[in-house]
């Protein structure tokens, strides 16, 4: 089931060291990269169908094409390593085991969009991982891989690690840039048309760590080398993660298009202690939950997941067994969202708190059927009425738990 592209070197001892990384193929795409025009690199990535691995699944190449023509303004690549979505722990594997693959991907991507400085925004809690990436960057500077001349070529590239301060919302790309500009991580209003991001009014592109780490393979082996894996619309591979009460939780790279139940039972090792599966939250906690029956039908690619009313998200699955109360699950997650709402928009700031209070009331035994309707009503008010997609994501998960498992809530009602 495993197909290794990004994770190819993860098991090699000292794979994070430059010497070992080079022996195992790192930076081998660079010669070919500089034989191409930047626009050809972008075209190849467009052709490969590479999709963003941070949760949204938006195509990477077309995003690069939104960069305006080169002018006197500096241009930036911003790598989103603010991995904070519950159930998601994949980017840290790249930081820990193959930071040079990330640097190689940054070189390829910066060349494609003509950016001479890249920022890697890493969540504050990942101190060990950001130190590891910084060591790799230092090695790369000393070896002349980055700096004034990238591996002897006429291309300048600086890479800076920027450490976050512990705010989930900074994974939202415009909040991330606000944070990088030294402000609170408040998402920005989105423009009507499609355009690039702006870092101090300079053009910038924001991509997830794993997305950038997927680029060297495309440069080296061409789009065909990537599209031979996965499905037609979801080509390539992804680092899928599984956690919760399963025998072998962890991160495994697979092509898109495998069945979720097979993933759970093979790589995930199946349920712990022979327990029965109750539900899976598919791709980080912000995706609509799937019941055990729905899991049987679920296929791990973007389109298939949309077809069954959920999303693939970050590919980080949280498995829930028969002994767990779904009310506890909802309460745990709403506490997370209430804590992490940035507070900018009223429906999100207040709505998450209201749902938290109502669930507390239900858990204390004082709830009624009317409370479930109120939760759904609050969800409706939160959906589509805020600056960013945080509130719609809360609605997705809470509404799906309440509507798919109403009987579990009802067992708490006294009357």
């Amino acid at each position, binding site marked *: 089931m495993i197909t290794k592209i990004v994770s190819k070197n993860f098991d090699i001892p000292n794979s994070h060291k430059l010497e070992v990384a080079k022996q195992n193929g790192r930076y081998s795409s660079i010669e070919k990269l500089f034989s191409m025009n930047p626009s050809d690199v972008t075209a190849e990535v467009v052709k490969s169908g590479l999709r963003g691995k941070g949760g949204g699944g938006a195509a990477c190449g077309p995003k690069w094409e939104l960069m305006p023509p080169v002018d006197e303004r500096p241009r930036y690549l911003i790598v989103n390593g603010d991995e904070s979505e519950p159930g*998601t722990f994949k980017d840290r594997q790249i930081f820990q085991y193959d930071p040079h693959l990330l640097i190689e991907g940054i070189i390829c991507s910066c060349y494609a969009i003509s950016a001479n400085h890249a920022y890697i925004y890493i969540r504050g809690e990942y101190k060990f991982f950001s130190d590891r990436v910084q060591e790799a960057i230092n090695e790369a500077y000393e070896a002349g891989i980055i700096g004034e001349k990238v591996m002897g070529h006429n291309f300048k590239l600086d890479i800076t690690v920027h450490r976050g301060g512990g705010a*989930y919302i900074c994974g939202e790309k415009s909040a991330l840039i606000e944070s990088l500009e030294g402000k609170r991580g408040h998402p920005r209003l989105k423009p009507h048309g499609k355009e690039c991001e702006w870092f101090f009014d300079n053009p910038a592109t924001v991509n997830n760590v794993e997305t950038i780490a997927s680029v060297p393979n495309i440069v080296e082996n061409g789009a065909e080398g990537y599209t031979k894996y996965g499905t037609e619309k979801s080509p390539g591979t992804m680092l899928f993660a599984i956690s919760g*009460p399963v025998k072998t939780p962890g991160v495994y790279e697979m092509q898109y298009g495998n069945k979720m139940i097979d993933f759970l039972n093979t790589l995930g090792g199946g349920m712990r202690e022979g327990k029965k599966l109750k539900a899976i939250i598919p791709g980080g906690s912000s995706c609509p939950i799937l019941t055990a029956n729905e899991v049987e039908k679920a296929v791990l690619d973007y389109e298939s997941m949309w077809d069954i009313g959920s999303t693939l998200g970050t590919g980080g699955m949280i498995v829930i067994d028969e002994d767990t109360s779904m009310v506890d699950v909802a309460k745990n997650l709403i506490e997370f969202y209430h804590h992490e709402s940035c507070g900018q928009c009223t429906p999100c700031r207040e709505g998450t708190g209201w749902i938290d209070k109502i669930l507390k009331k239900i858990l204390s035994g004082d709830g009624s059927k009317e409370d479930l309707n109120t939760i759904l009503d609050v969800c409706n008010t939160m959906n589509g009425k805020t600056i960013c997609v945080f509130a719609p994501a809360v609605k997705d998960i809470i509404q799906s738990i309440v509507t798919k498992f109403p009987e579990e809530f009802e067992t708490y009602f006294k009357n």
Partner: protein
Amino acid sequence: MSTFKFTPENEAKFQEYITRYPVIDSVMLPALWLVQEQENWVSPEAMIYVAEKLGKTPIQVYEVATFYTMFNLKPIGKHHIELCKTLSCMLCGSKDIKNHIKQTIGIEPGQSSEDGLFHLSEVECLGACGGAPMFALNGDYHENLTIEKVDELIGECKNDN
């Protein structure tokens, strides 16, 4: 004038940070991290100092420091335990770990022990779901926690004093 001052090493790091960004405003978070590494918390005096260095008003620094949960806005115990409470950890027994820590050290989340040795925080997802339950101790991740492992780590902290 603020009573806080960077150590010469941190001042050098601060100056290096300034060269890495197109506008000095970006050095806000790196500067607050330097403060916290130096003092173990971010005091109002240090915020005024950072404001002076960045050409900002103190309230602008305060606004940022209070938004990000990792900045300690008051002094805390020497060893900081950040216990993950989010879903995967909850499903794998983080509540048992929490109760054990509470009993062993005698503090609730958000409190520091009287001897100033420990501070316990309950935090949201630390991105270690595959190793649940887990906590970070002084920033280092400890995964697949058991009661024995927690006792061992707490013991090491006590001996370290």
